[in-house]
């Protein structure tokens, strides 16, 4: 299939997603539940993540980027499609195999306030995953590893005795990162991992994520809506809209030479922190709003807002085509 072929040039893919669909049922009634519709959160996505790369997954709320991440983490069981992790299809794994998988795949969430247990000290938060996976069974060695993890993440090892509420947002996010690293994973899904942080703290955490990637040979799926952060951190970027990947390419290629009309509009909408640059940029905001994924438009899902749509776009959903080497676009009107 399409995207699966663009990997030969680089290392073998760590993750390969094929034809992924995640439809959530909408039900009605309390006793006799009837299905009255479905939310097509992810609707036929092909994607590969190479070993050692950071793949950015961007798009606006409701585009399916978080659901993609949750499917790859197997926090959701996809409706359809395959997810190959290191060559094994994990889309329908049983519980036992899932536990083993989660030693290799970890996640960092957006909100450092709600993703840490407020009643546990940091030491306990970090040693729990080690216990679950049988890493460092000796309590003394485990405590030692907790201290090491904290210091790797730029925190004082004594923070093991603190509760999350005694720390700032940036420090809590460092604990969230340390917890992901506790089981020595190879792949981390970062779901809006720096979005809730203030600018000055955000830069610290971005640098930390880069250092850790190098130190532990990590692969990241970096889900974010902040395009500037994605440009800084990622090697390749996939742009999603209403459950579909509309563009996929090397990072600088997406930002300097966007081809899909949605990507173009998205990039133009982001103001740049430089008044001189801004004075020379003119742009037309994209009209309308993202349609509901319950009843997405026919054909190309972007056609109602697209400035270059033609009649054909209402009928045939566009294929993701490789228009330049490594640059994939799902639009029938660009070449």
């Amino acid at each position, binding site marked *: 299939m399409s995207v699966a072929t663009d990997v030969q040039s680089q290392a073998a893919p760590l993750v390969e997603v094929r034809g992924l669909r995640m439809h959530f049922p909408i039900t009605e009634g309390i006793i006799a539940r009837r299905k009255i519709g479905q939310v097509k959160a992810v609707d036929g996505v092909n994607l590969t993540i190479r070993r050692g790369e950071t793949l950015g997954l961007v798009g*606006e*709320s409701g585009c399916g980027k978080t659901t993609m991440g949750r499917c790859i983490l197997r926090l959701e069981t996809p409706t359809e499609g395959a997810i190959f992790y290191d060559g094994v299809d994990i889309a329908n794994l049983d519980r036992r195999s899932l536990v083993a998988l989660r030693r290799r795949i970890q996640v960092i969430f957006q909100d450092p306030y709600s993703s840490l247990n407020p009643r546990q000290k940091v030491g306990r938060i970090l040693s729990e995953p080690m216990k679950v996976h049988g890493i460092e069974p000796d309590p003394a060695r485990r405590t030692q590893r907790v201290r090491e993890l904290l210091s790797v993440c730029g925190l004082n090892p004594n923070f093991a005795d603190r509760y999350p509420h005694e720390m*700032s*947002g*940036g*420090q809590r996010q460092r604990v969230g990162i340390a917890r992901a690293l506790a089981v020595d994973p190879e792949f981390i899904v970062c779901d809006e991992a720096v979005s809730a942080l*203030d*600018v*000055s*703290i*955000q*830069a*610290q955490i*971005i*640098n930390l994520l*880069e250092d850790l990637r190098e130190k532990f040979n990590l692969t990241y799926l970096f889900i974010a*809506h902040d*395009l*500037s*952060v994605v*440009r*800084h*951190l990622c090697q390749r970027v996939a742009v999603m809209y209403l459950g579909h990947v509309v563009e996929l390419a090397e*990072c*600088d290629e997406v*930002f*300097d030479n966007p081809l899909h009309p949605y990507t173009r*509009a*998205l*990039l*133009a*909408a*982001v*103001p*740049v*922190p*430089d*008044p*001189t*640059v*801004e004075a020379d940029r003119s*742009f037309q*905001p*994209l*009209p309308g*709003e*993202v349609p509901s994924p319950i009843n997405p438009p026919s054909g190309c899902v972007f056609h109602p807002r697209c400035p270059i749509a033609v009649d054909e776009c209402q009928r045939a959903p566009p294929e993701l085509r490789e228009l330049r080497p490594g640059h994939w676009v799902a639009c029938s009107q660009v070449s």
Partner: protein
Amino acid sequence: MPPLLEVRNLRTEFRTGAGLVRAVDGVSYTVDPGETVAVVGESGSGKSVGALSILRLIPDPPGRVVGGEVMFAGRDLMKLSDAEMRKVRGGEIGMVFQEPMTSLNPVLTIGRQITEMLEQHRGSDRETAQKRAIELLGLVGIADAARRLKQYPHQLSGGMRQRVMIAIALACEPKLIIADEPTTALDVTIQAQILELMQQLTQRLGVALIVITHNLGIVARYAHRVNVMYAGRIVESGPAASIYHSPRHPYTIALLKSVPRLDRPRQARLDPIEGQPPDLTRLDQGCAFRPRCRFAVEACAAGVPSLDPAGAPGQFAACFRSAELSSLETGRAA
């Protein structure tokens, strides 16, 4: 022309369990008629509290405006009675907040919320108010206004609700609108629509705008002048171009360097501001940015620097070393 709004030495305090917090600590600035002034800063810098203090919307207790004057159209807002202040809020000064879902009343229709404003502030009768409401929704780009007026906030999308907020803010033809993070909760493409709308309308109607944001890109695109806040004080202010191209306060310099750029390929690692944001209950008599500042010297511990002219005309910085900063910066980079 005299300024439309002049804030002089505004001070707001909060009594908390951890101690006294000086959330706004001696803030002074002006806004001219028709001008867009941005207030930037990170969480806890006092940017929102400063705006709420102007409108006298600080919950007391725990908070209290303990000093300062807010001159608006020739009157000191701090000296008005509660009834007079209610007329100013929404009447002469419009407000747009971050969360349109929580700032609109969920049990009243959109139409009622707009007409209520007009009836309260303008004494309009139902029919005139209704007509004006339809006109206002058209102004903020909501199609099918007559039908929308009968809808409730939950029936609208986030972007649509923020348009309604803007319509309400504009309803009584204010001279000033205070917008606190007006687009932070919205998606990028919707954010762009709302900001363009606000810019067009404020220009066309000659309304001054104070926009409070943490987004340096929005400031660059829309603001004429900028106030940069840190730990309850304005540390630098001036024309947007000067602030961005020749900042004279170490915090502004560091802030601009710490954001990744959308319009340039990645060049190097980010240069973050080290350390943690200040704990406002534990500030000493020195400069609050000192613990994170690359250029701090002994003098910085002795007192808080005042906001003095620095760099370009109209530019001010509160730093003892602002005059030497540009040479220090080049020295560090070399």
